């Protein structure tokens, strides 16, 4: 029986190799594949293979041609002219036109969760089949990034323009795009099969006949499949404990290159509206009490990097010259004394609650548990409050019913898209997760972000964001802990891995064996 089974398995393997298949393993199960109306890497990864976009970015943060072979700003940066390639077709054979681009931009503007991303866009004009002109109310430096695969798939208007709600459109799970691979089959929660688009508008690509996304219930099941060489490509792997095993497995390679624009930061958010956390001295005391070196070196085994501010180090806007908050218990105690938070019975100054997102134990629960003894050193009696699932945690934090909480928030390339939302006082919204749930308000910060959001001069923009970073690090609405480590685990024979700023959230049309 065993021999028979092995023969069957060997036969299957032979078929798979003959068909040039890339098996893509992930635990991120998408609701659908339309990135115009849904964020998150679960949708972006397959979406970027099915749909093409006007532009793509390289590993140096520079825009590159994709469906648009050229582009230019006009009207003091308030208009963007896109000229489309002549030979792009959707998977159903219809040509990709400027009308499709205009429809897609307006659909994303109306439905994408990142409202700031295309807020400045007023309309898109289509003077010809190959020319689209994006008209904006003000200059919008992030517009080029917003036209890349993670955010703007070019949707076929003749399919998605039927009047149905794009967020629940029936074709979101059976999509038609113009990307390198076409949709073939989806079994919800099991697998997605994509087939090579033989009419892809970039000659000589893609290189695989099929991509099969296999969905796993958890990292343990996926790691077993990786070790058995059943999976060829696993981007965005975040379970640190398993990395050494992969590194020692022959035939498997591990890299951290690619996806720098995603900028995931793990942090401890503070509810600045609640007493005593409304006092900046108390917040600073908490920051000085936390040993980021311990978190990075001990809790994460040296496989993460400390985060010191709201913008990830790979971003062109990163400012390293901010207060580093090296652990200093004496200073923290002094700050608390100054704030009038005197120790009571048993040396307890105040009792507080730390929430954490359920799921990634290494990044959240372990840190929350670490805070218990660590903050006790400065007189805080910490209760770690678990949530059974994400909705419970989101309700507490979105409802501002928390003291401190761990959280992971992504930069998404440009601060306008992923950073402003956390700090703008206009974005303090009850019941909205990943808004300014800290209730942090500083008019100076609002002004800096408002100016940086429309500044076209790169150097001036960078200067504005540097000032912003200094202020928010100094006022500590958030204690920045570490960068989320994303690894790509792959078959060592794979070449041309997606290592641009969007990593595997961009097309893998160049990847091959």
């Amino acid at each position, binding site marked *: 029986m065993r021999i028979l089974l092995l023969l069957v398995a060997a*036969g299957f393997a032979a078929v798979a190799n003959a068909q040039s298949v890339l098996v893509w393993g992930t635990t991120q199960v998408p609701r659908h594949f339309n990135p115009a109306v849904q*964020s998150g890497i679960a949708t972006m990864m397959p979406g970027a293979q099915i749909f093409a976009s006007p532009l793509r970015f390289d590993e140096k943060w520079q825009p590159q041609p994709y469906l648009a072979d050229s582009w230019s700003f006009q009207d003091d940066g308030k208009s963007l002219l896109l000229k489309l390639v002549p030979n792009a077709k959707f998977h159903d054979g219809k040509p990709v036109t400027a009308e499709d681009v205009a429809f897609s931009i307006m659909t994303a503007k109306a439905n994408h*969760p990142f409202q700031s991303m295309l807020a400045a866009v007023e309309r898109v004009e289509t003077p010809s089949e190959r020319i689209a002109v994006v008209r904006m109310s003000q200059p919008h430096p992030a517009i080029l990034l917003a036209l890349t695969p993670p955010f703007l798939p070019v949707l076929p208007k003749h399919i998605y323009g039927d009047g149905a709600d794009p967020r629940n459109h029936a074709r979101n799970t059976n999509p038609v795009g113009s990307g390198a691979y076409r949709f073939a089959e989806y079994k919800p929660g*099991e697998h997605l099969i994509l087939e090579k688009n033989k009419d892809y508008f970039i000659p000589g690509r893609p290189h695989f006949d099929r991509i099969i996304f296999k969905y796993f219930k958890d990292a343990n099941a996926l790691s077993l499949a990786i070790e058995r060489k059943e999976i060829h490509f696993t981007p965005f792997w975040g379970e640190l404990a398993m990395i050494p095993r992969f590194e020692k497995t022959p035939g498997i390679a591990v890299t951290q290159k690619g996806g720098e624009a995603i900028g995931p930061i793990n942090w401890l958010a503070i509810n600045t509206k609640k007493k005593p956390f409304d006092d900046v001295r108390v917040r600073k005391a908490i920051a000085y009490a936390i040993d980021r070196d311990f978190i990075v070196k001990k809790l994460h085994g040296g496989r993460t990097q400390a985060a010191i501010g709201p913008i990830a180090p790979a971003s062109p806007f990163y400012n390293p010259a901010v207060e580093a908050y090296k652990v200093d218990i004496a200073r923290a105690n002094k700050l608390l004394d100054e704030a009038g938070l005197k120790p009571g019975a048993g040396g307890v100054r105040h009792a507080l609650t730390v929430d954490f997102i359920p799921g990634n134990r290494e990044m959240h629960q372990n840190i929350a548990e670490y805070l218990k003894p660590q903050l006790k050193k400065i007189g805080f009696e910490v209760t770690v409050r678990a949530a059974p699932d994400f*909705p419970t945690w989101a309700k507490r934090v979105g409802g501002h019913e928390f003291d401190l909480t761990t959280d992971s928030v992504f930069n998404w390339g440009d601060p306008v898209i992923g950073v402003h939302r956390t700090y703008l006082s206009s974005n303090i919204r009850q019941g909205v997760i990943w808004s300014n749930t800290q209730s942090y308000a500083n008019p100076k910060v609002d002004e800096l972000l408002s100016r940086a959001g429309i500044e076209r001069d790169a150097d001036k923009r960078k200067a504005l964001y540097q000032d912003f970073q200094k202020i928010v690090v100094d006022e500590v609405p958030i204690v920045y802990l570490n960068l989320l480590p994303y690894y790509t685990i792959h078959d060592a024979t794979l070449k041309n891995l997606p290592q641009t700023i969007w990593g595997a959230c961009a097309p893998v049309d160049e990847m091959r064996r």
Partner: protein
Amino acid sequence: MAYLAIVLRRLAQAAGLLVAVTVLNFTLIHLAPGDIVSTIVGEMGGASEETIAELRRAYGVDRGYLEQLAIYLGRVAGGDLGTSIYYNKAVFSLILDRIPATVLLVLTALVIALVVGTTLGVLAARYPGGWFAACVNLVSLFGFSAPVFWSGLMLLLLLASAIPILPPGGFYDVVAGAQGLAKALDIAHHLVLPATTLALIFLALYSRLARASMLEVLGSDYVRTARAKGVPERVVVVKHALRNALLPVVTVAGLQFSAMLAGAVLVETVFTWPGLGQLAFESILRRDNQLILGILLLSAVLVTLGNLITDILYRIVDPRIKTDG
């Protein structure tokens, strides 16, 4: 006529029970903090207040509890189990898609447990006091004591990782794309680990039951008579004793079917087996309430129907049971 009246009365009671179970399930799910919109917004990476309000409106979770309950009950009464918000697909169709995998797993496990368990039990009874009986006792004790998720993980580590001869999960190998007989063999290959895991606990139960029942039958007068008449021992055991000894095993197996379905939830989760159990587990985590309610309703219908049929059969088989109660 008396039986028809009982059946009708029981059906009315079953319908009332199903309504009560549905209301209870709905209420419990409603009481939990957060909802499907929180999950969707979490996966979207956030959303504006307007979008959240619009989603709540679209999915009907902005309405009051009683209004939502009335709408749900009305729909279910019309045969509509609603739409899974997560998958954007009809709940009934999602459930139908998953039923074959669960039925295959449960029936295979049941057959393994019955055949192997009974054989072990009979052999242990045939040779009591020996090393074989001791081994069967040990296996039964292990199967009975070990939680199904733990034994599943151990088998996974042993046969999918240390000695990788079996696949670690899934229903079939989508990469191979096999068809026909090759696909059936592939599914069987993937079925070995989950079915064995699920069978383990019931195998222990049936082997103990079969052993005890066989010991009792082998000591009975008619078996002694058969032996005295010179009937060969093999015939005594297989033809005379086994048939009677199997009766309690078969009865318990029927009663344990719902327990096996419950066990399938854990096994399907451990082995990524795409059945109803895994669907239920995922929908609970995602707060996909319509889907959870649909699966719970289906389970309630199955259990209620099973009880109803058993109840009626008992009355037919044993007329001493009162027909008016």
